[in-house]
């Protein structure tokens, strides 16, 4: 599910939950376990997927649907808020870790998976990587802090394009707009991340941590606003109907926006 190694100041966190690292309660618990033991003297965290399919396909929609089916409708809001609060806490802590964080992305990097990638300080994309916010198809907006985090990095035009069209963009376009730091060939992402980690190890730890704290702030107000908007929209009928369609779909390609 989630595993990590720690060697010479470098954590390598590997997501390996088929079909494509969907983020539900199990993944959340794994991330919480990882965060609880992070050595503050580490200098780099590399986050990557161990699955061929991609980095992460987003929230676990099947689990969300089952969870909502199991409780009366008047409890949906509390259920959704509980999960969103927990995931925001994890994402914010990843975002603000006092080490250099590198996301290695290939294949699908959609929805909540894109939001997880956006907590990283730098992204290394293999050529197959594609980024997408398909949430409007579900009658919601991204709810894991993705839009406020993306606003730190790229222009509003690109954000509107991604959010309001639901289309995916490839590694090349993502690199061109500054979302991705480096593009590498397929299968070369981890090697590039390790080289970057080795570079990070050379820096004075006090200066490295101060530099990150200086340049990367948590957009707290927007994150809180996004959370409220998400919870409000998630209580509408559109989400439940869309989840039902998704879960019951026999389409081979339900992830396509």
């Amino acid at each position, binding site marked *: 599910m989630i595993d990590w190694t720690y060697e010479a100041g470098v954590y390598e966190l590997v997501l390996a939950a088929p*079909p*494509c690292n969907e983020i539900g309660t199990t993944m959340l618990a794994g991330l919480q376990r990882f965060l609880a033991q992070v050595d503050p003297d580490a200098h780099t965290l590399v986050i990557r997927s161990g699955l*061929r*399919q*991609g980095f992460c*396909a987003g929230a676990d929609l099947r689990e969300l649907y089952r969870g909502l089916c199991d409780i009366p409708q008047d409890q949906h809001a509390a259920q959704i808020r509980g999960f969103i609060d927990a995931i925001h806490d994890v994402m914010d802590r990843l975002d603000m870790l006092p080490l250099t964080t590198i996301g290695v992305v290939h*294949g*699908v990097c959609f929805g909540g998976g894109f939001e997880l990638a956006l907590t990283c300080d730098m992204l290394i994309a293999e*050529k*197959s*990587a*594609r980024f*997408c916010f398909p949430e409007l198809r579900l009658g919601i907006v991204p709810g894991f802090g993705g839009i406020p985090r993306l606003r730190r990095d790229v222009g509003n035009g690109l954000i509107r394009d991604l959010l309001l*069209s*639901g*289309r*995916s*963009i*490839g*590694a*090349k*376009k993502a690199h061109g707009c500054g979302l991705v730091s480096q593009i590498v060939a397929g299968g070369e992402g981890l090697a590039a991340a390790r080289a970057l980690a080795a570079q990070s190890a050379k820096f004075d730890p006090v200066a490295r941590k101060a530099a990150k704290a200086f340049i990367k702030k948590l957009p707290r107000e927007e994150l809180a606003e996004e959370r409220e908007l998400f919870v409000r929209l998630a209580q509408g009928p559109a989400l439940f109907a869309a989840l039902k369609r998704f879960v019951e779909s026999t389409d*081979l*390609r*339900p*992830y*396509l*926006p």
Partner: protein
Amino acid sequence: MKHDDTLSALIQLAAKRFGADASQLRPEDDLFERLGIDSFQAVELISDLEDKFDVELPDYELQGIKTFAALAARIDARR
């Protein structure tokens, strides 16, 4: 690139990526069915096509497209 050239290059690319025999693929074949492409592979194929043909292919424009010929026409329309 003419439509036939786009079509030929598309079939070659898809055959190579998914380990099929290009000579057995026809323009009117359902490429998803013929190549057994799942949702994740479809996403990767879009990146391959964008790189190969130097175009942007919004996902929503590809909905409903099933055949190599229709996909080649969509690529040509974006060039």
